[in-house]
């Protein structure tokens, strides 16, 4: 297991290095002067020089790259051009809100997909099955910026059960979590159904039924438990996707997380903030993927053996 872990971590280093390089390159590959992008082409020469100095753009590119990488390693992502505060501090302030939203969205997705996916498999060919699959396809096709407003109109405006936006009031996380989790639920429902159908055909399920074990126990204890592994793995790998997907949901619900910090950075042309947020989300995504792989290898020895080979 330790060999597998070391191998995966070693493989991660060049990927993280390449991701950092890509994020650094973003501003340098812009056609023309990057300062134009921030201040506009009509800005005063003195302001341009000041900005160039503030962002370190007056140094040779290789030196900027070295400074950027050493900053990333030390957790120094530069200063916000607008708020004049360290970007890493701003990210740390916002990160818990995004994690909370993504974790609850994942809980919503797992609860919905495990119930409806299992039901669809157990009652294959029934109205439940067709209904779940249709709901899955609709869920995948419904963008967060449509589902979010729809949920607000129904649950916040019409029924007045939940707050419209923000994070201050109790229950304010419910609608953003439902919005973010719906697409994931649709994907996982289809996966749960197909893995459950496979598991239900296994010999041990047939044996359990032949022994006279109650159907509920056969489904929950024998079939679902074994169908869980691939579903949980995909859910883990998709957690990083939720962190990125939160950008849209946070904008719809004015949720004060990393996504809204990124959108604010884009609107204000505060590029150190934009770079910092992108790097942080990409690194989180990579680390969550690593964690999922390692956990899966811990649960399933076949993965470790295949990797060693």
């Amino acid at each position, binding site marked *: 297991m330790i060999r597998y872990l070391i191998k995966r971590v070693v493989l991660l280093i060049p990927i993280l290095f390449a991701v950092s390089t890509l994020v650094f390159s973003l501003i340098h590959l812009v*056609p023309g002067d990057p300062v134009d992008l921030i201040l506009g082409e009509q800005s005063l020469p003195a302001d341009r020089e000041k900005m160039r100095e503030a962002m370190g753009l007056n140094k040779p590119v290789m030196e900027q790259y070295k400074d950027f990488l050493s900053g990333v390693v030390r957790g120094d992502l530069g200063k916000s051009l607008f708020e004049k505060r360290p970007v890493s501090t701003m990210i740390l302030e916002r990160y818990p809100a995004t994690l909370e939203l993504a974790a609850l969205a994942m809980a919503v997705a797992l609860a919905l997909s495990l119930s409806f996916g299992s039901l669809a498999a157990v009652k294959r060919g029934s109205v439940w099955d067709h209904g779940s699959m249709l709901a899955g396809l609709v869920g995948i096709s419904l963008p967060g*910026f449509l589902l979010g407003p729809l949920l607000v109109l129904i649950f916040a405006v019409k029924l007045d059960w939940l707050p419209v936006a923000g994070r201050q009031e109790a229950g304010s996380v419910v609608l953003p979590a439902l919005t973010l989790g719906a697409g994931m639920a649709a994907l996982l429902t289809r996966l749960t159904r197909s893995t459950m159908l496979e598991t239900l055909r296994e010999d041990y399920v047939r044996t359990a039924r032949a022994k006279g074990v109650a159907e509920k126990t056969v489904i929950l204890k024998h079939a679902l438990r074994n169908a869980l592994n691939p579903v949980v793995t995909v859910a883990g790998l998709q957690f990083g996707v939720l962190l990125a997907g939160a950008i849209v949901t946070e904008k719809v619900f004015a949720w004060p997380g990393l996504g809204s910090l990124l959108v604010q950075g884009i609107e204000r042309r505060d590029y150190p903030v934009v770079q910092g947020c992108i790097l942080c989300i990409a690194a989180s*995504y990579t680390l969550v993927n690593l964690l999922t792989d390692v956990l899966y290898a811990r649960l399933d020895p076949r993965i470790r053996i295949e990797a060693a080979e």
Partner: protein
Amino acid sequence: MKRKGFLFGLAVIGVAALAAVLAPWISPQDPNAFDLAARLSAARPGHLFGFDEDGRDLLTLILWGARVSLTVSILTVAISGALGTLIGLTAGYFGGLCDRVFTFVSDVFLSFPSILLMIALAAFYRQGGMMGIVVILSLVGWVGYARIVRGQTMSLKERDYVKASVAAGASTPRIWAKHLIPNLLAPLLVQATFGMAGVILAESTLSFLGLGVGGDVPTWGRLIDQGVQYLLVAPHIALYPGLAIAFVILGFNFLGDGLRDYLDVKI
């Protein structure tokens, strides 16, 4: 159920394509015509979907928005599909260093959630207009096609008829054109159909975040972005363009599902 879904998808995409092509002739109003007295007002005779916050007819804007969404998605799918096919074929057919470089590059691309990579590129390259968006979406989208083509090519090149062709001295372009590409068309068609749905969603997301096609061009994502600000007083502004996006994406997903079953493709 699958057949019905396929036909539903075909019908929805047909209607959307017709709306996009005929927008200049069937729109109730000029897309730039303003009626300030009507701003935010709901549907009324002659204006089925009501008006936006500038007093423009919403149905007109949605019809013109269909042109943007479908043009961007067709161009993006064509460019990323062609690029991905070329790269995937090269990596899968030649293997060795080519394949190792491809695997590393695609791993780096996949270490970014695609939506984040698109936002990152669009945040820094805002001046490109519609072609700029197509380039950004193609830069992100080629990896999916390349991975499918690489996998299929690796399996196809081990088939007897390809080996026989190599032994008979056929040139690489001939082998690609005669044996590999015709066998790649079915999975590529299915991937491209799902890809259309993905690109429409991506383009709308960028527009919603203020990073889409610039200028005064009406796009579905931008309409929703504006509509969300007036959600409590004029929900129709966000609702109708949102439904248009959802129906078109659903249509392409149904179409892709149907094609996948009909062509017996596993992707």
